[in-house]
């Protein structure tokens, strides 16, 4: 069981209440596809991913980015049992989508950077630590059902 301090719970709730899902989600996914181009292997049917501009303007990327962020909502609402909350999604990513779990960390790093850009100075070291701990728990849960 993951132990969360009051500060961590408040910080995660605060961040997710402040960010616009339709802005942050698409930006994080697009950034991941640009900075780590091998991640594009999972999006062969997304059309034009030829360059950064195409990726950032791609509507399928935008839609999927938003979907991912809403998926994180489940963890925000169930912080005391993220492992169980993501059991089904983990099976999906392993058995159906065949996503290398190393990619979860890459996307979570991009999400950290996008949120940092949104929050600016408010994204202090303590806030970053809480956010990264949250994402690490999510990443671990998503990789749990792989075998």
């Amino acid at each position: 069981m993951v132990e969360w301090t009051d500060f961590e719970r408040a910080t995660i709730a605060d961040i997710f209440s402040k960010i616009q899902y339709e802005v942050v989600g698409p930006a994080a996914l697009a950034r991941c596809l640009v900075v780590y181009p091998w991640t594009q292997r999972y999006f062969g049917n997304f059309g034009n991913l030829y360059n950064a501009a195409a990726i950032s303007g791609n509507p399928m990327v935008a839609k999927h980015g938003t979907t991912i962020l809403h998926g994180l909502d489940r963890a925000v609402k169930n912080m005391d049992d993220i492992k169980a909350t993501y059991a089904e999604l983990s099976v999906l990513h392993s058995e159906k989508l065949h996503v290398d779990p190393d990619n979860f960390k890459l996307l979570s790093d991009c999400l950290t950077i996008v949120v940092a850009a949104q929050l600016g100075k408010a994204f202090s070291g303590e806030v970053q630590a809480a956010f990264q701990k949250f994402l690490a728990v999510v990443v671990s849960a998503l990789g749990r059902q792989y075998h």
Partner: protein
Amino acid sequence: MSLSDKDKTAVKALWGKISKSADVVGAEALGRMLVVYPQTKTYFAHWPDMSPGSEPVKAHGKKVMGGLTLAVSKIDDLKAGLLELSEQHAFTLRVDPANFKILSHCILVELATIFPKEFTPEAHLSYDKFFTAVALALAERYR
């Protein structure tokens, strides 16, 4: 994943802006690292104060940024340009090279907070590659 001309141009262009507040960027990134990755504090146990904004952190952040400014100037041959720094990290400081990635990440986060508009996905890509190349050059003399 070597640096293309496009990467080098992107790195130098944004570094011009960064160097104007280099001391702040360095201090903040280092302070961030010590908070987010507490295991990195083991290298600074000899400091009287390791908190963000403290004098030792500010002084050291400035030093680190100086090293990165050197790296930018030697971007065409990082291995040769950073040889001395590599020897220092390898034989004197003996910093586990895994930490280079940690500090790089913290600098990238700091750049995102200070330059949200300029730190585009493409700039991020070039800087991620640059810091990876710098880390490799710094680890050159380790063994």
